[in-house]
């Protein structure tokens, strides 16, 4: 029995990770000079570039909200982002719009939009390489870019996905694992207060499995939080050291 459990824990995924192990994360805030805030993040082979502009004037009068800022999220998938097929996707691709609205819903309660009445905050996300986990990487990249832009937030958000395959819970699915009919649950957490802002799943999952999968995703969020936290603290310290008068 014991040996079986150990085997289960050590079960190797396609890229040599363990089932409860995150893919490698690399991130860097402030990569673009033109944008008010920007960030680049890699989770395994998924790579995303985020740019935040604003608060600025609304582009269309119809989007104006008189007592708070409007958040506008646009996601684009680079034509070279998938190795299997090279094609240009329009911005109005249904799948991308869905992800954009998930990102928007995640950030709406967290950004203090009431401080910037009648203005607009634009978040542009570009997936440079696609290997699964699009929602989570978009949320993580947007978080970093918003922090870089200095937009007031109650707390910042971390997102992570988890799934379940043949009774084993898996963390941070890549594209091949997503394709293998694995139910994938994306969780976005406020790591400090432990509140949940997004819980999204497109397929069916047995209700008994929901809790372990959710807990695993939450654990992943905490781990991502550690990485982001370290990066930003290091970045801020570095910035102020470089420009300190002495």
């Amino acid at each position, binding site marked *: 029995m014991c040996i079986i459990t150990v085997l289960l824990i050590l079960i190797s995924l396609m890229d040599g990770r363990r089932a409860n192990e995150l893919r490698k994360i690399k991130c860097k805030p402030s990569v673009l000079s033109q944008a008010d805030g920007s960030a680049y993040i890699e989770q395994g082979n998924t790579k995303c570039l985020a740019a935040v502009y604003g608060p600025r004037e609304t582009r269309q009068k119809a989007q104006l909200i008189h007592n708070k800022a409007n958040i506008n999220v646009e996601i684009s998938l680079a034509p070279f982002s998938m190795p299997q097929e090279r094609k240009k996707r329009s911005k109005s691709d249904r799948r991308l719009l869905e992800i954009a609205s998930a990102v928007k819903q995640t950030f709406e309660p967290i950004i203090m939009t009431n401080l910037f009445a009648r203005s607009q905050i634009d978040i542009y996300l570009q997936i440079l390489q696609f290997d699964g986990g699009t929602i989570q990487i978009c949320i993580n990249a947007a978080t970093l870019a918003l922090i870089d832009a200095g*937009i007031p937030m109650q707390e910042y958000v971390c997102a992570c996905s988890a799934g379940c395959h043949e009774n084993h819970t898996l963390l941070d699915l890549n594209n091949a694992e997503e394709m293998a009919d694995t139910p994938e649950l994306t969780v976005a957490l406020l790591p400090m207060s432990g509140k949940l802002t997004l819980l999204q799943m497109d397929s069916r999952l047995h209700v008994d499995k929901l809790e372990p999968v959710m807990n695993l995703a939450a654990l992943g969020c905490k781990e991502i939080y550690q990485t982001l936290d370290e990066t930003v603290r290091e970045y801020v310290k570095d910035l102020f050291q470089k420009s300190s008068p002495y």
Partner: protein
Amino acid sequence: MKHSKPTERTKVKVVLPGDTVSLDVTTPGITLGPGLIQAGDSISCTKAGFLVRSGSIYWVENDQKRYIPETGEHVVGRISGKGGEFYRVDIGSAHQAILPFLAFENATKKNRPNLNIGDLIYARVALANKDMDPELQCLNPMNNKADGFGKLEGGMVLKCSLRYCQRLLTQETDICKLLGQVLQFEVSIGMNGRVWLSSDTIKHISLVYNVLKQAEALNNSECKALVNKLAV
């Protein structure tokens, strides 16, 4: 412009959005600046940066590029439109600012200022409210004199982070003073991340522009080295 020397500022620590700061909210005279909010008895941060303390005032200092207007601050703006009673001015904030024709020295209904679209101005924020467009004025409200405000002729504008503008104004970074010993130039530093600069020749203007731009990432001794290299 004369600026009173700021009281001693101390950097407390690095903070991130959501961090709670252990400050006693009941301390008399405690003031929370940008980046800090009070929720019940605790104070939490909304921005990433350094928590800075000056006397009993606390705020978060970061490297923001987008300007949020505040009454009394001086800004460099570009005229972007003209209405019946006012100019529209781009100051880099979320909304275009309004500059009434009457907010100039000696201006009357008949005696209007003569500014065109594209002109640069140095002005003071007269009114800043999150629900209204910001309003500017080109006079000092203490004595109703222009006092250096108004149209900026020639020169060019450097866009930089808001904190760099503050550093230049408080002379925390004394690059202007150092560079002034080498060549003559004029600067108007706005709090909105725009610095207007001018000199006698175009060559000198672009030199000043490049030096000021580079100095953003340098400390004082490196600034000195940079200027010394130019002086030779």
